[in-house]
């Protein structure tokens, strides 16, 4: 079984983002970037499946600008076998990314495609489902547990009401929740080894996919600020304020 894992480079989850004054977006210059957190879970799961002898190869793919390759390199350092970097500049919508990934799937013929359930920058939560649609494959979204059984997967999904378990036939797409596993850290020797693993570079234009945005970003602004609150001295004061000032209890 061959597993393709898609990873995205985003502003690090610990960074408090700042909106640009001209309203054109958020500040990304000199801001720490890292792999989208649930994409780390996707890589970890693929590597674990390979370590359990149920997969033969793990290929990490990213779509994006020059520096996006860092995320593939990181995936290689935690156990992916080789990488693919589809180079494209500018804003990419999930629809365009899923079309590019479809081309990569056509070429690589993986049995499974894993990725994070949502990117923490645009918060779209679309790419995995869109890729499943384009391929007409089953989709197991928001996965918090995956059991590989021959040519089937049993996947536990996190849904609003609790948990759902489905069985999907391979080939299939799985989008991963943060609770799927605990991603490992790359050891220094593995980081060194990863430098020797191959990353194939492909220009998006060579894949014949139109990546021009369909959704225009008119402006980006800061959300309204909450007015500063107060500290109360004790529980009695808190309950009194809630009852008589805020009138919510």
């Amino acid at each position, binding site marked *: 079984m061959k597993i393709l894992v898609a990873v995205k480079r985003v*502003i690090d989850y610990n960074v*408090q*983002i700042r909106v640009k004054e001209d309203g054109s977006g958020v500040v990304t210059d000199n801001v720490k970037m890292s792999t989208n957190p649930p994409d780390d879970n996707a890589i970890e799961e693929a590597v674990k499946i390979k370590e359990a002898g149920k997969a033969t190869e793990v290929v990490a793919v990213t779509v994006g600008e020059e520096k996006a390759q860092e995320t593939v390199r990181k995936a290689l350092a935690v156990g992916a076998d080789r990488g693919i970097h589809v180079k494209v500049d500018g804003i990419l919508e*999930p*629809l365009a990314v899923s079309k590019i990934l479809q081309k990569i799937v056509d070429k690589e013929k993986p049995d499974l495609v894993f990725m994070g*359930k949502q990117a*923490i*920058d*645009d*918060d*779209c*939560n*679309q790419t995995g*489902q*869109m890729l*499943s*649609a*384009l391929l007409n494959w*089953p*989709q197991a*979204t*928001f996965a918090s547990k995956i059991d590989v059984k021959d040519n089937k997967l049993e996947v536990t*999904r*996190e*849904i*609003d*009401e*609790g*948990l*759902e*378990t*489905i*069985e*999907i*036939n391979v080939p299939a797409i799985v989008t991963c*929740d*943060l*609770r799927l596993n605990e991603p490992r850290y790359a050891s220094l020797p593995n980081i060194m080894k990863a430098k020797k693993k191959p990353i194939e570079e492909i220009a998006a234009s060579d894949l014949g996919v139109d990546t021009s*945005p*369909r*959704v*225009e*970003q008119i*402006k*980006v*602004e*800061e*959300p309204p600020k*909450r007015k500063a*609150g*107060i*500290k*109360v001295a004790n*529980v*009695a004061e*808190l*309950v009194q304020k809630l*009852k008589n000032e*805020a009138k919510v*209890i």
Partner: protein
Amino acid sequence: MAVLLIAEHNNKELRPFTLNAATAASQIDIDVHAVLIGNNSAEAAKQLSELPVIKKVLSVEAPHYENFTAENFAPVVVKLAENYSHIICSANTFGKNLIPRIAAHLDTSQVSDIIKVISSDTFVRPIYAGNAFATVKSNDAKKCVTIRPTSFDPCESSGGSAPIEKIDAAEEFSNTKFIKREEIKSDRPELGTARIVVSGGRGMQSGDNFKLITEIADKLGAAIGASRAAVDAGYISNDHQVGQTGKVVVPDLYIAVGISGAIQHLAGMKESKVIVAINKDGEAPIFSVADYGLEADLFEALPQFMEELNKLNTIQK
């Protein structure tokens, strides 16, 4: 062209956020049709027809729609889409799972999780865990939009009498099989719609200690929430998680107990009307969004809180 709302339901009745999505749909276009895909779901379809904002209900029933599988639902909507300008659904796990599958089939770039309708093609949506709001204009001929339910009021639920039209089922998708659903049944209000939410974080230290929260929630008629740290630690089940990758809640009162306030958690609760933070670390970021902050050990504060509540003559429910 009318807009098409995809109803969320449990085959017996509508799920509450369908009413919020109906409101958003009616802000996009006055002509709202709704499709209900289910199994033995006639009663839910009838409820849908009673929403005054809905002009027409399309209903399809088949055994393979029993469990809301996106692979089965998408073809039904894709087939209907030619008659509609917009496909609308809630941005909860039902809509998040389903709508992108439809959008890709329609070659449409989806607009996720909108909080405001500016016009039929322009919407506001939060990005970066709600730390920025983007105003976006969709240039696709057909638009697929998911709406953040807590940003729209529920529509009226009775008084309407839209015609119900039966439509044909699409073929079953055989590569996905539903096995089971584990729903946590509770008599408490639903987290997404509760007037008061009491949430616990890593500071609770164990699942057992959550009973301190449960007591207060029961007293206040509140739902119980949690930070991701508390869910990851196994203190409480995932359906309680509030935050960027969990649920977004906008109650009248949100009480955060032992929650430090990572931006990912704030994303799910900072629009609440009144926020209370109880934390022993006075520097915790949760205090920056709290209307009332109490710097205290929660294991002392919560029993006292319960005591104070017991002293009150009346409590709003």
